[in-house]
């Protein structure tokens, strides 16, 4: 028996998943690989890494303060870890010192594995230093913030990346990064923290941009198929909103009734 109020959720999830998977399949079979315009925020990641290399200063990265099993921000953390993989490889390739600051303990072993693999894949495993390249700071929000700020000041980082789920500490970290003179690129799905990143960072990936960036930065072109599928899903949502608004104005509440089932 279906739980009350979940049928519309299931229907939309199945429909959206269908479009996402169909475009993933078409891309993998090279039948249709969508062309995606470059996102300024994604371009800024590459620019910031280049800047750090030119200045000969380190790059810092935070995958957020949310756990991998957080119901609200697990996706955010997963996207941040994907971006971490790309950023680490590029930083190592360019010869920049790379430092990752970790707050949730569950993210620590995963981030260590990702960064260690990046060093290995770039043929520089000896440059990966245990407990130094990936640093665990504190699961406490403010403990993490002070440690991360301290690290940025000590190392005088030239590029700072803030992705994943950040909360109230976002403003303190981002503004301290600006004080150090680091070029900062951030991304978050937390709509309450986005304004802080927008005012304090050079570039911000807003909401789903963070997920799209993860696919965009992937060396596998197949990943880009899902971005096109996402656009189709958004188009369906927009059509439902417009149709629902028009019908509601006319006194017909069929869409809202269907969506509440």
């Amino acid at each position, binding site marked *: 028996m279906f739980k009350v109020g*979940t049928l519309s959720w299931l229907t939309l999830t199945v429909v959206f998943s269908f479009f996402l998977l169909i475009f993933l399949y078409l891309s993998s079979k090279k039948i249709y690989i969508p062309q995606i315009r470059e996102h300024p925020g994604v371009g800024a990641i590459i620019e910031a890494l280049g800047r750090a290399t030119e200045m000969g200063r380190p790059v810092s990265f935070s995958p957020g303060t949310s756990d991998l099993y957080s119901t609200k921000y697990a*996706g955010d953390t997963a996207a941040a870890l*994907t971006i971490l993989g790309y950023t680490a490889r590029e930083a190592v390739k360019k010869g920049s010192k790379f430092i990752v600051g970790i707050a*949730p303990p569950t993210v620590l072993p995963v981030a260590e*594995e990702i960064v260690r693999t990046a060093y290995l894949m770039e043929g520089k495993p000896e440059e990966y230093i245990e407990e*130094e390249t990936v640093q665990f700071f504190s699961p406490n929000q403010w403990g993490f913030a002070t440690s991360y700020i301290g690290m940025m000041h000590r190392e005088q980082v030239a590029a700072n990346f803030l992705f994943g789920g950040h909360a109230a500490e976002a*403003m303190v970290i981002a503004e301290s990064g600006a004080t150090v003179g680091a070029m900062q690129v951030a991304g978050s799905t937390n*709509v309450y923290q986005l304004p802080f990143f927008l005012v304090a960072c050079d570039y911000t990936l*807003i909401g789903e941009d963070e*997920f799209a960036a993860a696919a965009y930065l992937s060396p596998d072109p197949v990943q880009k198929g899902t971005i096109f599928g996402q656009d189709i899903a958004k188009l369906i949502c927009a059509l439902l909103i417009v149709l629902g608004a028009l019908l509601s104005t006319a006194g017909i509440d069929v869409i809202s009734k269907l969506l509440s089932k």
Partner: protein
Amino acid sequence: MSSVWRNVTSAILFLVSLIILVEYVWVDATLQRLTTDFNNWAVVIGAFTLGLGGYSIIVRHWRMIVKRRTLWPYSVVLLVTLFTFIATGLITGSVTSPQYNWIYSAIVMPISSTLYGMNAFFIASASYRAFRARSWEAAVLLVAAIFLMLKNAPIGGVISPILPSIGTIIWDIAGATGMRAILIGIGIGTLALGLRVIIGQEKTPLGGAD
């Protein structure tokens, strides 16, 4: 991570995700029990990783002290505090003991509150940089921010009752519309990333690289 191990991880992830998704929509006692178990396992594994984190902190700061790196005395403070906390917990036998609570409420809480309070100053300095009308977009941001400040600050209503109303319109219509559009995008983006991870197309969050 070896490819065999990664495939095994992907298969487990796929199966567990499927069970949790089905349990979300379907009423079934067995599925509910399984989902509760999975969530409990996640918490237990999370507790183990805290040990890894603790080890990482101790090793890094010990290294900083031994090598007399910049600001090494702070590492001494950190390690002393860490072990004092652990010792207090072990000696009193409880993390709810008055001694343990005293350390928390007399040291950790005030420091956290101070940091949180500092947000106001950071917001002011960041706003000063962001609200300089150097472009058309920044000018729009500046105008919207002025109206919202006048809506929230008592002086806005004193100057004219229209000013808070404009702020309310910006917040309730432009702000809410934009925020909902972002939330819809986030939902679909999360679904897309989740699907890529579940079917094994996105391997980085499992550790390693594509």
